[in-house]
């Protein structure tokens, strides 16, 4: 008698777990199918907004390959290229979009797409004061950063006080990204 009850109990436990698992999976498939297209559109809009910030004259943005965009301005004139690059920051991955001129000699600007840096310190890499330093920065040689002083050479930027690691991470991501893209374009 007791044995039979225990078997029943085990069966009930397995049933309960299975039912919960199936229902949970089914609900999540619905949610997933509903949100994925929307999320994709969100990411695209975000990228487009960032590119338009870097190239205000942009009229057409063409995705020529993964994470690489050709930006055209008025009268079909090529305004430049934009590409996405990522790397490790202080607290996680930093994802940037970087715009360069058509000849690959200087940066037109950069925007932060994703980062988990410390609010108030590292997160300032997305602030306009830090980002402005990259506008028209030559990339004919490697970008360098300096601490607590004004840049003296044209290829230098000033790191954010208290967030050297995040600043350095951005510089490294851009340097590596530029190298990578150059190799692929040639």
């Amino acid at each position, binding site marked *: 008698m007791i044995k039979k009850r225990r078997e029943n109990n085990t069966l009930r436990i397995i049933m309960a777990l299975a039912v919960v698992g199936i229902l949970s999976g089914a609900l*999540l498939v619905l*949610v997933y199918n509903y949100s994925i297209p929307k999320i994709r559109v969100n990411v695209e809009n975000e990228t487009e907004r960032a590119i338009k910030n870097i190239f205000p004259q942009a009229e057409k943005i063409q995705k020529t390959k993964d994470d690489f965009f050709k930006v055209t301005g008025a009268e079909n004139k090529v305004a430049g290229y934009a590409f996405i690059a990522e790397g490790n920051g*202080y607290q*996680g*991955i930093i994802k940037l979009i970087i715009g360069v001129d058509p000849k690959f000699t200087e940066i037109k600007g950069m925007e932060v797409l994703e980062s988990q840096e410390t609010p108030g310190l590292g997160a300032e890499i997305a602030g306009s004061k830090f980002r402005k330093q990259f506008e028209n920065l030559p990339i004919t040689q490697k970008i360098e950063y300096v601490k607590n002083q004004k840049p003296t050479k044209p290829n230098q930027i000033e790191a954010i006080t208290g967030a*050297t*690691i995040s600043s350095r991470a951005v510089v490294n991501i851009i340097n590596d990204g530029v190298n990578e893209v150059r190799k692929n374009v040639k």
Partner: protein
Amino acid sequence: MEQLILVFIAASITNNFVLTYFLGICPFIGVSNKTESAVGLGIATTFVMTIAAAVTWLIYHYMLVPFNLVFLQYVTFIIVIASLVQFVEMFIRKTSPPLYKALGIFLPLITTNCAILGLTLFMVLRNYNFLEAIIFGLGAGVGFTLALVIMAGIREELEFAEVPKPLKGAGITLIIAGMLALAFMGFGGIISG
């Protein structure tokens, strides 16, 4: 090798789970009365964290990603962690009764410790490889233990101090944690090189 050391130091000290990500605060406030129990809980958590990092890494990269089931990530991870804690408990009880006696009472507490789930989520977000994931788990555990033991030490001394009445208990613990967080920020320079 350098990368592994960096992951370890970041997880245990400069980005300490408790003091910068606020993960595992519940036991931090609850259990950090006595140094001895703090050490016990710390070791048990480190143990589970290291194994959890390895197991969830394998599941994520060899089951969820290939079969396109990433949306089941949270559900899977929490089940894995809960069953892992159960297994570890049974395993220790069978193999080493003295160890079980020392750690046993802490194990059930670990399932609801958000540091473990947090660890597995961060591991995925940061794209760690298998070895890095294990070191990350170990480092996070060591960091958790460190914060817990320091806190317990301070709280033992606190019994002799006159704490304003409304702040007794959780209030003063949180304020001390704030000061510890400031102190730990000073380590930030270690990995800036």
